[in-house]
């Protein structure tokens, strides 16, 4: 597979991923465009530059692991994994259809190359900690990355996990909050404000990095800082825009869980050239 640290190349892949996300969800007629688009650069930077993994050997014991805790954003995960060669790109448009490996939420029964089945929010950090602890026991260099929604951070289990990892110094875990400010019912600040978010993670013993989640060089630097941080898990607070890249979806709660119409698809793709 292609691996690159060139931000221009990573940006080009990101654009391609955005197009695929729009096409997949339009074809499926349901799904979650907003939170898929906000996480594009996070996943692209991880899969094409930062993570040590091998699509030809997906169960390589020392691989870095990735968990999409906010499983509803799976269109971007499927797109990225297909681009890496883990799964067929020509089937991406079967998303959410009966018999497709591209289930509405990540499901290892249908896609054994996934690290986790998700879709019920709040559980990914705990799962990541388990994988990271196993890596430590096995003296493996494997690191585990987990992407969370900001609304998802309202789940109590997130903070039980945060307390555990801080206390136990699980420094091979990186929790990435896709801080796009919107959840299902509206803006996170109106539903249940997470702020001061960085202070919360710090108080639980985490090393915190705040970064623009669409700025690829800044993300590369942040992941490098996370890798060189020992004795503390890292929380990367990625400031993102929900629906990023499609003007009429940007920062618009309506597109949390609504598929584009054919006309909207056309307008979206026209912006992603």
């Amino acid at each position, binding site marked *: 597979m292609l691996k690159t640290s060139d931000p221009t190349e990573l940006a080009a892949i990101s654009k391609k991923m955005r197009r695929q996300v729009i096409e997949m969800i339009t074809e499926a007629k349901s799904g979650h465009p907003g939170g898929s688009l906000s996480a594009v650069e996070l996943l692209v930077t991880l899969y094409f530059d930062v993570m040590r993994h091998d699509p030809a050997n997906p169960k390589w014991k020392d691989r870095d692991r990735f968990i999409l805790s906010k499983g509803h954003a799976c269109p971007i995960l499927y797109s990225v994994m297909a681009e890496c060669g883990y799964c067929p790109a020509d089937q991406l448009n079967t998303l*959410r259809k*009966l*018999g497709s490996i591209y289930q*509405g*939420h990540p499901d290892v029964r249908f896609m054994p190359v996934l690290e986790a089945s998700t879709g019920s929010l709040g559980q990914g950090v705990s799962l990541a900690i388990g994988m990271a602890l196993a890596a430590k026991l096995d003296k493996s260099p494997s690191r585990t990355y987990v992407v969370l929604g900001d*609304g998802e951070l*309202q789940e109590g289990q997130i903070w039980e996990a945060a307390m555990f990892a801080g206390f136990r110094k699980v420094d091979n875990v990186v929790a990435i909050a896709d801080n796009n400010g919107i*959840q299902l*019912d509206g803006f996170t600040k109106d539903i*249940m404000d997470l702020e001061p978010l960085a202070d919360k993670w710090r108080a639980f013993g985490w090393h915190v990095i705040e970064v623009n989640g669409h700025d690829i060089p800044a993300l590369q630097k942040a992941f490098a800082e996370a890798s060189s941080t020992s004795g503390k898990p890292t929380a990367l607070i990625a400031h993102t825009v929900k629906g990023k890249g499609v003007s009429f979806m940007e920062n618009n709660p309506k597109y949390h869980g609504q598929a584009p119409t054919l006309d909207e698809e056309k307008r979206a793709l026209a912006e992603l050239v």
Partner: protein
Amino acid sequence: MAINTKYELKLGAATREAFGKALVELGRTNPNIVALDADLSKSTMTVGFQKEFPERFFECGIAEANMAAIAAGLASAGKIPFASSFSAFMLNKGFEQLRVTAAFPRVNVKVVGTHSGISIGEDGPSQMSVEDLSLACSLAGFTVLSPADEVSMVALVKQAAAMFGPVFIRAGRIKCPLIYAADQTFTIGKAIELVSGTDVTLIATGLLVAESIKAAEALEAEGISAAVLDIHTIKPLDREAIAKAAQKTRALVVSEEHLVDSGLGVRVAQIVSETTPAAMEFVGVVDTYAESGAPDELLDKYGLRAVNVVAAAKRALARKKAGS
């Protein structure tokens, strides 16, 4: 006659929509009614209550366990809270809280799980609930309701509010066939015989009630007389109606959009074995989680259709015959 039309069931509202409507009506007549939701108010349909009574609506964010116990606290202090989320999250995440803060002290809390069963469709099994009836029935002292259409949902939500004690109400995502006329009366704990028959009794809850009615019609065309019972109250179960059906037809099929080995079927079987033995068959989800797909495709694939009820009825009838 309880059925609207004999050979054609008109599509009505989804039971979650009926719940949302009933909740607003309750809010207008009783200032003690309050509602809680966990970032799904547009899906559970509590959004109408939120708009009309913002001061009595508590948005809890994506934190179902916390919401369950807050609701119990509100109930302990004299309010009548309706807490809702997808059934999968409400019961699986809130179970321990419901057990300790609602069931133990038997507080007056009403818990509503929408998007139950596999008919939610494309979102897939993480959002589906095939074990909620089992979990809810495991909460000692809870009343468990599973209405089949919008008319029964509205009526039973109102009765749940009127009675004192913890209640779980199961609702679905998709529009479902209208079973009842607007003037139908319902009593919690009393099954409704929709079709009378003498050879076999089709017992069902939720979406499978309409499928069982269709099955009864198909059986009738083959000269088999099938009765249909709507079990809108899973707990307390209508012992009398079930014993009577077992005695009368000696062949029963129980159908539900739920794991077959932990839902309505096993509870009916318990009553049958305690009263009048009968040949029994079960239609439901068999030891699996479903998948993404269109609701209709999933109901077909997982065997939750009238044809499956018909086939089960014939198996039960064959055993009844062999045993007599």
